[in-house]
């Protein structure tokens, strides 16, 4: 019984530890300044390739696309958004309200361009 209690004490310690660290997360206030993501699509290649970008919930995001031909971006939020861009420069404006990780993909090239960490 003594030993069981010791195990119980450790468990409680773990729970406390976890809850304390959970509350210690830094709060990142979402701002109204847009986050700019520069995307270059050229010769079947996309830059960036799978980078993480931190954004706030509801914060405006400007996807500045420079492309050699027109195409479509998929934003894997819920519901999914499909955004068309033209050859040359296009700025696509989005905002994501629900926290989580949202992938932005090039439809034509089947490539993940950025993963937005929305918090």
């Amino acid at each position: 019984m003594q030993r069981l209690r010791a195990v119980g004490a450790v468990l409680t310690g773990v729970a406390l530890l976890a809850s304390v660290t959970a509350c210690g997360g830094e709060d990142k206030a979402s701002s109204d300044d847009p986050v700019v993501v520069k995307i270059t699509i050229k010769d079947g290649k996309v830059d960036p390739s799978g980078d993480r970008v931190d954004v706030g919930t509801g914060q405006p995001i400007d996807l500045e696309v420079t492309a050699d031909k027109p195409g479509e971006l998929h934003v894997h939020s819920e519901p999914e958004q499909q955004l068309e861009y033209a050859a040359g420069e296009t700025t696509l404006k989005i905002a994501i309200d629900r926290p989580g990780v949202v992938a932005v993909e090039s439809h034509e090239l089947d490539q993940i361009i950025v993963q937005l960490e929305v918090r």
Partner: protein
Amino acid sequence: MNGVVEAHGIGGQADLPISLELAVSGAVAALVVSFTVLVVAWNRPRYDGGQHPGRPAWAVLDRVTGSPAFAVALRALGMVLALYTVFCAVAGQNVLTNPFFGIFYVWWWVGLVFASALLGPVWKAISPVRTLNAAIARLAGSDPDQGVLAYPERLGYWPAALGLYAFVWLELAYKYPTELGSVRFWCAVYVGAMLVGGAIFGNRFYERADPFEVYSSLIAKLSPWARHDGRLVVRSPLANLSTIEPTPGLVAVVGVLFGSTAFDSFRESTFWVKTFQDSSISKVYLDNAALLVFVLTAGLLFSIGSALTPSAEGLARRELPRQYAHSIVPIILGYIVAHYLTLFIDVGTQTLARASDPLGKGWDILGTAGVEPSYWFSYHPEVLASIKVLAVVLGHVVAAVAAHDRALSLLPKRDQITGQLPLLVVMVAFTAGGLMLLFSA
């Protein structure tokens, strides 16, 4: 998006990664608890050998769950679910909103695990392939328990391990996991294999070779329910866990389950995304190789860790891994909770809404078409992250205790503490690795 199918499967938005502090404190907690268990816990086996039959459950519950009518009702429920799924698969459209995908990847693969952990061996009770086999046997005037041949016990769980690998391969390493035709084909092969196997080997085949029954029944050993001398009893999951038989292929099953879940986390990390996108080798090949490496690594690490423990009764070293493999089951459950909880709640709810309109014609057969997930956990990421870490750490603690208990009956007296170290190190590595994946996902 007629026919055009996304390569990355079901579920749009993913969970935020857990914070580094939380991952590290979880790993430290796992380490501390492991050694506490090793040093201060009991030093004679408590659960091994069935000294804990458990308390009899409420008499009404015992009568109801033990009655033939209850068994028939569950079989009927299983058949209805299966037929509805077949209807969605055959008559529905090849779009992600077809409920078939949610039923297959979320209700079946994840929901079955949660249901089994809470209620016991669910798949055994509702399995439509068992029901079909029983129906065919009845028509032929034979006994469904008896096949033409006896199931070769040397095969053990190996066919189930293969079947489970086939499932995770379809989900994680195949190019078109959400194309109706391929998932339907997978199901057809599954049902075909199960019916042929059942006809040849009888019901024993399902216990050993049906991937879903093996998975569900292993997880059910973490539920508080058991039948002891025919009576329904409530007992510690640790007592249930110790009754998992050290069958051949058990290590392969837990290796596939743990390794594939780890790979599912890993493939969302920036590291992996960059690797396959910047590589000249096709993503499918890389995914296939990585899935295999994860599964083999999990199985081999565990095998090495347990084979390095000394054994008292002249048990061959290669027999040791399967003697300890039951202890990995709680780690798997903890990691499944951490990894799939939100998928189950959110996409599971979405699937219920879609199931009301199986053909995409605007119907509302079940009256659930308007149900929408609340995404509560998305808006409370700290709560979610704490649940994930607690689930992983708790799974680890139960695993460490189960392994400790088994070690006491296998280890020679003089090696009782030091002998456990290799396995303990592997377990801590699994847990720390799992937490790091949740951090980088």
